[in-house]
């Protein structure tokens, strides 16, 4: 469509925040450098100018207190968006995320509502080295009480961020740093994508690829490559990792009889293990080959581009992984 409106992933995030702040006076943002500066990736650009410093709050570099600010404000009736600049920094705030935000409602016997959105930026590919490049989503998905969201494109970003802000449970919205400039169709009007609903990014019949965030895009490239060999890939982007759309994944595998799970996080202990396990429990009789996991090697993210480009899985890794799976038939 010629008149289709295009927007960058980062601006899709920004627009979702802006529209929800317009719609609900209880929504506010707090984080490091998000005010006049607009956030290190420009994610909050222009929002303080529009909504004022009381609603777009520059905080000290204090990750525990930033999340605590969100927890306390949420449990007393506001709808906070708190930003942790890099995903690696969730480790600084883990008590407030894991022991407080995720558990208050349960520990209080249900007598708490926590409409809290924690936003952060994950993933590698910028030579940002081991403390600014991690993919720690599996750690968060292991915590009952949290919801974890990782969009792979601008359209999903806006719809999922809108859903996160409207959600009455603590959510963690993980932007991928390498997708910030990705452009795509994003409707101007507000819309939300339900948390827990995956997406068939590409229909196919021979093998199911489960991939999210940047890896979903690498899987699309891989699928085009494999199509030349007559291998028809179906790509499932779960979009939300907790709750996980297991039904969509399993129904796809029942059709294709093959499954490959791809993530940028280290393979060992990653979400791929959980997804593979779900597939084997729920679709074992349909599988023609073991479920394959593609992920990073079990090392910190290396700095040098010469190393990092081999560390992070890409379309070539995925093509090879799928060829291996199909060769086992």
């Amino acid at each position, binding site marked *: 469509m010629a008149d289709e409106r295009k927007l960058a992933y980062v601006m899709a995030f920004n627009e979702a925040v802006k529209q929800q702040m317009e719609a*609900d006076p*209880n929504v*506010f943002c*707090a984080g490091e450098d998000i005010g006049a500066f607009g956030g290190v990736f420009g994610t909050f650009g222009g929002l303080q100018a529009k909504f004022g410093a*009381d609603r777009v*709050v520059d*905080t*000290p570099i*204090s*990750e*525990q*207190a*930033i*999340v*605590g*600010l*969100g*927890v*306390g*404000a*949420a*449990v*007393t*009736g*506001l*709808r*906070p968006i708190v930003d942790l600049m890099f995903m690696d920094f969730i480790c600084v705030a883990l*008590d*407030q995320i894991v*022991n*407080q935000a995720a558990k*208050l*409602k*349960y*520990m*209080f*016997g*249900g*007598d*708490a*509502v926590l*409409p809290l959105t924690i936003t952060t930026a994950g993933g590698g590919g910028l030579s940002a080295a081991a403390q600014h490049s991690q993919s720690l989503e599996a750690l968060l998905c292991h915590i*009952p*009480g949290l*919801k974890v969201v990782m969009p792979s494109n601008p359209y999903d970003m806006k719809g999922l961020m809108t*859903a996160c802000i*409207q*959600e*009455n*449970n603590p959510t963690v919205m993980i932007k991928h740093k390498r997708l910030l400039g990705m452009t795509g169709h994003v409707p101007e009007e507000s819309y*939300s994508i339900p*948390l827990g609903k995956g997406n068939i990014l590409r229909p196919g019949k021979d093998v199911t690829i489960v991939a999210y965030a940047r890896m979903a895009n690498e899987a699309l490239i891989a699928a085009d490559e494999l199509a030349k060999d007559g291998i028809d890939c179906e790509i499932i982007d779960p979009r939300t990792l907790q709750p996980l759309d297991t039904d969509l994944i399993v129904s796809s595998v029942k059709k294709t009889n093959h499954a490959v799970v791809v993530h940028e996080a280290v393979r060992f202990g990653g979400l791929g293990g959980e997804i593979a396990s779900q597939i084997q429990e729920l679709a074992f009789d349909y599988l023609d080959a073991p479920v394959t996991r593609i992920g990073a090697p079990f090392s910190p993210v290396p700095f040098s581009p010469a190393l990092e480009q081999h560390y992070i899985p890409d379309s070539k890794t995925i093509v090879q992984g799928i060829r291996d799976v199909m060769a086992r038939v």
Partner: protein
Amino acid sequence: MDLPVHVQLDLHRRMVRIRLFEEAAGRLAESNRLPGFLHLYVGEEAVAAGVCGALNDDDHITSTHRGHGHLVAKGGDFNRMMAELMGKATGYCKGKGGSMHISDTSLGMLGANGIVGAGSPIAVGAAFANRYRGRGQVAVAFFGDGSTNIGAFHEAANMACALHLPIVFACENNEYGEFTPRDKTMAITDIVDRAAGYGMPGVIVDGMDVIAVHEAAVEAVERARTGGGPSLIEAKTYRFYNHHGVQNLGLKYRSDDEVAMWKQRDPIFTLEDRMIENKAATRDQFDAIWAELRAGIEAAIAFADESPYPTPDQIMVGVYTSMSGAN
């Protein structure tokens, strides 16, 4: 001693309620009728009572692992508290939280907390929300001397001051972080010395004197409510029992003489003696108050005893709210 008699009696009543609840909980724990850990507030009643007596019903507090006293002082219901300590379905948290997570958000009590120091950042959030709404509510963070050594306290105090929030940091300095004396874990004697580093006023009060605590709290709460920003109150106090459980004497880390010295300064009896001396109340009046409140605690134990346990189908209830997108 300019406080009106009815205010003194209100503070007294809050303290007696705490004492009775805690002594009852201790007795139940001794006879193995309470599951889990029990951190008793006995000895520190003047702090919770003096501070909460300065608050409105819609003000917020965050608490600690030693949190029963804070909930009682904010108006907590004995029945639901005792049922929660027993892990019953009728408890404040439906048996999901227990002693260390007891809470009542309708009273503005945002939870006891099993993580030392974790309440202060949450109080900062409540204070932020209170200012945001502009209804003049304030937040109080209760915390111990030991928790001022953890990063969360520092972050919370600094952020509260940087954002000039309506909050009071109420420190219960009972001289021990669990089983280790304060002088082994910090190089300062007074927690209040930390306040200057954040740019907020701080005051030391006798934490065994409920009137002194209350007067300091009234001033700090007023400052917060009128846009004057955060304050720190350090109440010098003492827990009569062990860090957890009901032992009070023969402990390896503090002497029996020290315990006896502090018990002579019992905050409730100190107030009663003073009020009788000042002819503000009589012994008979106090006896009647104790008897009335004691009946309430006995009824609460019976209520908790008779209450059902939660059923296993409740395990997954309350992990997430089913409401989504609604406000």
